[in-house]
């Protein structure tokens, strides 16, 4: 169960409140947020946020603001599901956070996007090593992607406070406030899952990145692709129904089975490859909750094939 954190002098060692007791001057206006159901709950339930180095790089910027216990309150908010929604677009994050008032506060975080010229410079650098794009497309952060940025005199992450513009509709005089912090932490956690989000936030979405890379690889950017069409291209033309008796009643030869018929060595490989869902809002973790289904369904299906399936 998530904990509700209240002021308690005997618990000042608690990491969620590490500076709450002493740094009196930073103590935010005391308030108790309204309880929410169906909010986005952070995966991290204790300690720091963000497992990957890139998520940590992101969070470091926030923590360089001197906003005292708002950081820990922000973490509690994130963990308790006070954030109701997060939408991440080019250069801008908008979110709703439930505080003590009836209406949720509106939070925005603006991040500087890359200019067209910067984008092209970067594209050249990235296309020299396809590993960058390949990893990103597979939802992974390439190890030394930053070298490509520094080579162009750019930075992937906001480096200083000046690179971020944050806003919140709450009455707190401090900016960033705990609501901004809560959203910020959650974004960091999502970066763990899909590093492409950082690029998207910086104005380099998937399609643009691909385009930049293939253009720089010597290609002329003549091909515009419709991805929906790509996915639809597997449809075959429907053959008209015939009156030919053999085709109508019997059909053709069914191809013999050729695939492995064993349980995979790892349970739910596809699900694990995709990982959790962006801004997941449930008490139940997606992968952990669904994993047992895979194993059980596998065994049930094996019985169907072996002819041992009997309905219960």
């Amino acid at each position, binding site marked *: 169960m998530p904990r509700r954190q209240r002021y308690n002098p005997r618990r000042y060692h608690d990491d969620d409140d590490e500076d709450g007791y002493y740094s009196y001057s930073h103590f935010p206006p005391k308030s108790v947020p309204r309880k929410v159901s169906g909010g986005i709950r952070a995966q991290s339930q204790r300690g720091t946020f963000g497992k990957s180095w890139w998520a940590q790089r992101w969070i470091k910027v926030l923590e360089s603001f001197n906003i005292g216990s708002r950081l820990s309150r922000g973490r509690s908010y994130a963990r308790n599901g006070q954030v109701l929604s997060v939408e991440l677009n080019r250069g801008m994050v908008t979110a709703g956070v439930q505080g003590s008032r009836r209406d949720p506060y509106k939070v925005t975080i603006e991040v500087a996007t890359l200019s067209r010229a910067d984008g092209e410079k970067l594209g050249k650098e990235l296309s020299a090593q396809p590993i960058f794009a*390949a990893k990103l497309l597979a939802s992974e952060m390439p190890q030394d992607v930053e070298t490509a940025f520094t080579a162009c005199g750019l930075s992937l992450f906001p480096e200083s406070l000046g690179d971020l513009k944050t806003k919140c509709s709450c009455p707190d005089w401090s900016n960033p406030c705990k609501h901004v912090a809560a959203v910020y932490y959650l974004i960091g956690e999502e970066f763990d899952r899909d590093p492409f989000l950082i690029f998207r936030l910086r104005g380099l979405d998937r399609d643009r990145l691909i385009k930049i890379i293939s253009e720089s690889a010597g290609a002329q950017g003549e091909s515009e692709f419709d991805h929906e069409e790509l996915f639809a291209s597997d449809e075959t033309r429907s053959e008209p129904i015939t009156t030919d008796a053999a085709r109508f009643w019997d059909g053709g030869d069914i191809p013999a089975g050729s695939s492995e018929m064993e349980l995979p060595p790892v349970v739910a490989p596809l699900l694990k490859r995709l990982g959790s869902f962006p801004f997941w809002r449930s008490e139940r973790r997606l992968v952990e909750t669904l994993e047992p*289904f895979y194993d059980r369904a596998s065994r049930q299906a094996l019985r169907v094939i072996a002819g041992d399936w009997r309905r219960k």
Partner: protein
Amino acid sequence: MIILHAAFFGDKFHLWGESPASGPEPSGRRKNRVSAESDTPLSPYDSGRSAIVSRLAEAGVDISAGGKKQTTLSILLPSTDSGPLASSPLIAPAPDAAQEAALKEWKVNSISLKPVDAIDLLSRCAGKEMLAPGLAVGKDLRYWVAAMQFGAGLVVRQQFLPDLVQNETKLKVGFRAVWEPVLSGADYDRVLKFSSAMPHLCRASLFEADSDHPLDAARLLKDFIAFIVDYLVRSAHSTQPLIASPPIPANSGSIHDRWLKALVSDDGMLTGSREECERFAHQIVEWRRPVFITSSAPFRLCFRLEEPNGAESQSGDLSNSTDDAIASNGRDWTLRYLLQDVNDPSLLIPAESAWKSRGPRASLFKKRGFNAPEYLLSALGAASNLCPPIEESLRMPAPDGCDLDLSRAHRFLTEEAWLLEQAGFTLLLPAWWTRKGTKGRLSARASVKSPKLHGAAQLSLTEIIRFDWQVSLGGETLSLAELKMLAKLKTPLVKFRGQWVQLNADEIEAALSFWKGRSEGKASIRDLVRMSLGAGDAKGGIPVESVSADGWIGDLLAGIQGRASYEEKAPPKDLKAVLRPYQLRGYSWLKFLRTWGLGACLADDMGLGKTVQVLALIQRDREEGANRPVLVICPTSVVSNWEKEAARFTPRLSVMVHHGIGRRKGDTFSKEAQRHAIVISSYALLHRDIEALNAVEWEGVVLDEAQNIKNAETKQSKAARSLNSGYRLALTGTPVENNVGDLWSLMEFLNAGFLGSQGEFKRTFFLPIQTASDPSAANRLRKLTEPFILRRLKTDKTIISDLPDKMEMKVFCNLTKEQASLYAAVVEETARALEKSEGIQRKGLVLATLSKLKQVCNHPAQFLGDNSSIPNRSGKLARLTEMLEEVLENDDRALVFSQFSEMGEIIRKHLEENFGREVLFLHGAVAKKNRDRMVERFQDEKHGPPIFILSLKAGGTGLNLTRANHVFHFDRWWNPAVENQATDRAFRIGQVKNVQVHKYLCAGTLEEKIDEMIERKRGIASSVVGTGEQWLTELSTDELKELFALSKNAVAD
């Protein structure tokens, strides 16, 4: 007769059936049955719902439990002016070729099945043409069965993801949480091939389609597979809830909570505003994108592993010089990246040209809407996680492959290639690599010295013997020096005398220990036999390549493996038959295996004389001093036949028939059994009287028609396995080796434990062979079973050169109890009448009685003429059905003659209901045109009807039916000339196969007695007997009474 069909649409499986129209004219019926609400007429062949439900219930399929829903389907069927065409001649005769068919809409009554019932029904239909007598599985339904198995395969391999799909109904737009199959790589290819094999009937339902825009086969198949996958995953939850506490009401919580809940709910419907659901559905698409982009592109990344060039002089090659080999890890292997066209897998495009945006390749890609660079980047990105060298290669622009050193290449072969394949990529690996490693492996050879033998009585398979191990690599014996050198090499792959072989440290360790004098092993001879047939490993997991032995064990192994021909035995003295050469070999083979206590299955074609080979074996054993009885278990319908054959071929063996109501029980039975050489009983009693049967120590047990124990779970099979017996023998005329599923039960009876437990068998043989995933499994199984199954085909002239062109056999059948009491009634009535009649009247009476008794022997329904039920009332018909089943399984063709056209009709109906195949029937009322057409279809049509029934009068002369190689005389015309003339329909110019003539007789009835009389008169010119049956009327009253009297042994029930 019902042929089951099914349509799939709207996430529902709709079952309907086709039956012969019961009215006189299909078109006349149709007019009366136009349904009220629309103009679409009801198909005259519609089975109706209640008929389907009750027939299914009889077959043990209960579809009413799920609360069946009644629906009416509109389907397009090829039709002529007189109505729709039928799927099979079983329903209605095929139309004139001249008549042009067009698609027309018809209604049929259908039952919409719940998913659980649909899967239950489909899995019961697997591998069957008939679900039960009179209930055929339509081709379209069989197609759905295959599609279901494919879907289940995806679930086994966990190729599915949760999803959210829009669910549009007329009333509103809803969203459903579903489990979606992910079709990638080879699965995708299969779906394409699969969809082009779909019978058009599957798409002809007019729920969503119209004739101009029919349902797309690929779309429909994918929908169906998705339906199966979704249900199998969803229902895995309902058996034991996985999301239980804390309970969440379906309509509260976040959309994610509601989605999880809906993924396991019955209908999967997701509550929420349309906008919220749409946004969420879009997010799911984004989330699934990394899997999707690699699974649905028109081209697919393909990896080809290439050996180092000019490998001969390379290191890693352990040829003659040991030093060469130690300098391992020389030149690199190459892993090449290629793009493979999904529609044409033979088209492979090197990645090199795929990176370029100009050139012929680029325009090909563009035409197919394929973004090659994005796909390559995504796919290589995904692959790079599974295989580090791929990741390295992505450090350079436009990579087209990567280099692997020897150990990396090995790792690629053993681990990474598998992972990549499972992730949906195509792998092209060297031919010498198999799923289990290199073809050449370190293997062990056992060598055995046979211990001294003190007389044959000592032979026992359980005896433990010692042997030595030797080591070989890729089929070549290894010296100690070579082995040591390999150990030092520490490379997993070595080129040894020109071929790549795989090595691992444990195996080398075990192999070295063989050399260091610790190479002795111990095993029973039985295990040694298994080892020599390729089952079982040596120490360290090294497979056993061969077992060599000298002395008598060597003889044993050589005989079993068929390397040496087993000693040909002289036929027993008291056998009253001359064994043909192949029979002598079969008998010697039986004797050989029997001596070792190994079970044997004699699976010769029908008519090659399995019985006489077995009788010869029993006779020979007796002559050699065996004194315990042999138990023969056979179907009730052949009990008499066994008795007759034994009396004919081995008259010195005393035979006891354990059958019927008056049979002996308990101690009396065992005592009596001990006093006979052969005890004949039936499968029905095998289970019922098992206690009594088990009280006897049998010399041997023979199962005739051993397909009766193909299901290991039945009481009969279990009883058969429990019998105490010196040796075990199975006889069958069907190709047992073709049906892998049935093989375990048979082998377990013959040689218990040889194929492992039933579970092991399923894992190591059944599933791999069934799903064709491991081609070597079928070979290994064959190697293990081959030595115990002997099957000779009469068409194989190299083995059977001495078979006469025409073989006549009598088939002795039993009467059922009902037949016997009818028979007795007729005889009694006649006896009274005979006393009083004379002259013409007497002749008439005799002929009438003959005819009545023949009818009783044929079938009670024929005698009574009451159109009553057919199954299980006639011994002859039961036997005919069994024998024809064998004929069909061997793709042979048969003529069946009867002198009664009423009987012909009964036979036709019965056979069609049982086999679900059209049976031709020619009788006096068939018009000339139809008659010619029947002959033509039987003779010339490639997949024409294989069984042709003819009335003796209509078909006994003139016709040329040489495609038949079996002729059955269901009843007898007591005049050999007439019978021979009929037989000659098949046996005349143009016949290339030998013809078997089966003459049916009911044992203990007048049929047998008249037959004996004819045999006695054979020498006399046929003129004496005349052309009719008149001669019988000349017999005296006493002779006639004796002729008509029913012997005790006539009934077997």
